[in-house]
Structure formats: structure tokens, C-alpha cells
């Protein structure tokens, strides 16, 4: 294995770990901010995987197409996050709740 392949493997493994951990976190978290954070990090894991794989391109430069996709993805993730946070504020203002579960285990007021 060349150095490059090892680098790719390390980062791909980290990406998969992050992704798996965040999927789990997303499923068990109740508070919506926590869920939004998890969603963001989940996206980051996917980006990392994409770019790590892009590094496999032959030659000195990585493949620019995944890079462009990730740049686009970061911005889209940001807009989605910002929108989600605004919606969360509205939810809180309207109902005083910060989670979507029933009232019994609703988050802090």
C-alpha cells in the first residue's frame, strides 16, 4: 500500500465512524438543537468520505468534481440548518417546546 492509499483509508474510516456515531446520536437525541448538530456532523462525515475518495485520483491533484460537490453541499447544509433553527425558534415561541416528542419527556422549558 502506498502512503496515499493509507491516508485515504484513515480518513474514510474516520468518516464512517463519524457518520455512524451521528446517525445513532440523531436517533436517540430528543432536543432539536442536538438533532440539528447531529445532522450537520452527519453531513460532514459524508463530505469527508467523498473528499477522501477524491484523493484516490491519479496524479498530484485530487479529483475536483467531488470537491465542487462538497462545497455546494456545505452551503446547502448551512441554509438548511439556518432554516431549521428559525423554524425551531418559531416552535419554541409558539409552544414553548424544544422537541417533537410527547409532553411527558419534553425538553427543558
Amino acid at each position: 500500500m502506498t502512503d496515499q492509499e493509507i491516508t485515504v483509508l484513515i480518513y474514510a474510516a474516520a468518516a464512517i465512524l463519524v457518520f455512524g456515531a451521528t446517525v445513532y446520536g440523531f436517533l436517540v437525541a430528543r432536543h432539536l438543537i442536538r438533532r440539528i448538530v447531529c445532522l450537520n456532523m452527519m453531513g460532514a462525515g459524508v463530505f469527508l468520505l467523498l473528499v477522501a475518495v477524491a484523493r484516490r485520483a491519479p496524479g498530484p491533484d485530487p479529483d475536483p468534481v467531488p470537491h465542487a460537490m462538497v462545497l455546494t453541499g456545505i452551503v446547502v447544509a448551512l441554509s438548511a440548518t439556518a432554516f431549521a433553527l428559525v423554524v425551531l425558534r418559531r416552535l419554541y415561541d409558539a409552544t414553548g417546546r424544544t422537541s417533537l416528542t410527547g409532553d411527558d419527556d419534553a425538553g427543558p422549558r
Partner: protein
Amino acid sequence: MALVAWRAIFAETLFKCVVLFIAFGLLMSLAWVRLDAPDIALAEAAIGAGITGALMLDALGHVAGEPADRSAGDMPLPGEAPPPAGEPLALVLLAGVGGLMGLLGLAVWGLPEVYRGVAEPALAEVADHPVANAATVVLLDLRAYDTFLEMAVFLVAALGALILKARAIREPRAIPPAHGSEMLHAVAVWLAPLMVLVAGYLLWAGTARSGGAFPAGAMLGAAGVLLFLAQIGRGQIADTRVMRLLLSIGVATFLVAGAAAFLSDRAFLEHAPGTAYAMIVLIEAMITISIGVTLALLYGASALDPRTPEAEPTEERAPS
């Protein structure tokens, strides 16, 4: 990094969770540099760690009520701890997630030995393109359609935030403590023009080296947020006609470019031969402005309570 993510997920307070998320973003940008993706590193540091973090902290402040000493956001949260490992539900979840990770791992492991790359045909074009930064070429020429739609998504998000803000319940709330801090004001006055300058440089550099519209736009947005916190020129940042124009100028430029291409018998967004460089720089400048303004607005829309109009006269500072 995976460790930081893990700690962020299971941090016992929300505040810790968000701060760890920011740290995670910074680590990510280091990883980007290591993976030879400086463009993404810049964007991640500014957008992922910076602006998203600011937005989250702010939303947290809103949701957790007034400042931290009301401790709502600082207490261990009921229902927040992960279910104990013995519970069947947790076990099933863990197994599912493990299976998912295994599949992903197999997918990566099973990649063909030789990387053919999605970009092989594209790269040939990149090589003799007037713009030297490969990512920029891909974003704005070869895959301009994606970027166009992305700008549209961005615009829609901003509009949604603005609409929700306009309809938000009008309750008086304390503005962030930055209110009236002379230090912040002084720093912002000096820093903001510099940041605009850096944004301009990044934009220009994007044609040849790393940089480009997204990092530049993020820089511009950060400058906007800074001004916002220091409460300079709130009148301009408010939702006005000019703002709306700036907001949509990126998408508008794309549309005009696309329409022009149609009129001269080319495919949508295909640049005329010889004008590609100029077009790209133009479009990039426009979307930089749009991104910057949108980011500042997204922050503003969610950060400030919707009572700007009355407050406006008192917000005017002496010209400096």
C-alpha cells in the same frame, strides 16, 4: 475527530454540545487541508465552524431563555442521556448503525483498484481552461447548473427565514450583550473593511489558486455578522429593497447568463467561446455578494428580534 463528534453527541449540556460542534468543524477544516482541498477548508472554517456555530449558539440562547444563569441550557437534560445499553431498543439501533457502517466500509474497501474518476473527461477540459483553479472551473463552467440551483436553494432558505421572522411573535427581548460595547464597536469598524478586502482577494484568487466565491462570500457574511453584533448600520442590514436586490443578484446573474446562452443557440449556461473567463469572474463576483448578504441576513433574521424599525434612529452612530 470521531471522538469529538462522539463527545458532542453525548455532551451532557446543550452548550457543550454546540461548542464541541464548532471544535469539530475546525478539526474538519484541518482534515480538508490534509486532503488537499484548501477551498473546502476555507469554506468549512468560515461556514461550518463559524457561521453555523454562531447561529446555533444564538438559537440556543433564544430557546434556553435569558442568559446562562437561568441555567435551563446548562443542566443535564431529562431524556437527553442515551438509553442504557441493556435496552433492546438501543441494542437494535446500535446493531442497525453498525450494519450501516459496515456496508459503507465494504463500499469503500471494494472500490476498484484504479481510480477512473468521474472527472476524467472533465479534467481534459479543465487543463486548457483559462481559469486555473480546477474546483472553480467545475463549479462555474462545467457544472454551473448545480451551482445555479444551489443559489436558488440558498435564496429560498433566506426568504423562508425572513418570512418566519416577519411573522414571529413580537415580544421584547434583550439584545445580545454586545450591545454598547465600545471595544466591539471599535474592532468592528477596523476589521470589517479589512474583511471585505480579504473577501475580494479570495474571490480574485479563486480563478487561479484556492479561494473562490464560497469562501469569499462566507468572509463577507462574517463581516456582516460582525457589523451586526456591533450594531453599526443596522438600517442598511435591515430588510430593505436594496437588500432584496443584493440577495437575489446571484441567481439573477445566472438566469441572465443562461438566457443569453439560449438566445445565441447554446445550451443553458454554456459560456460563449472566449468569454468564459470574464463570465466566470462576473458570476463569481455576483454570487459572492449574494452569499455574503444571505449569510448576514440569515444571522440577522434569526438573531435579532423583529423590532428593528422603531429602534433605527437611536442605532445611528456618529460617522467614524
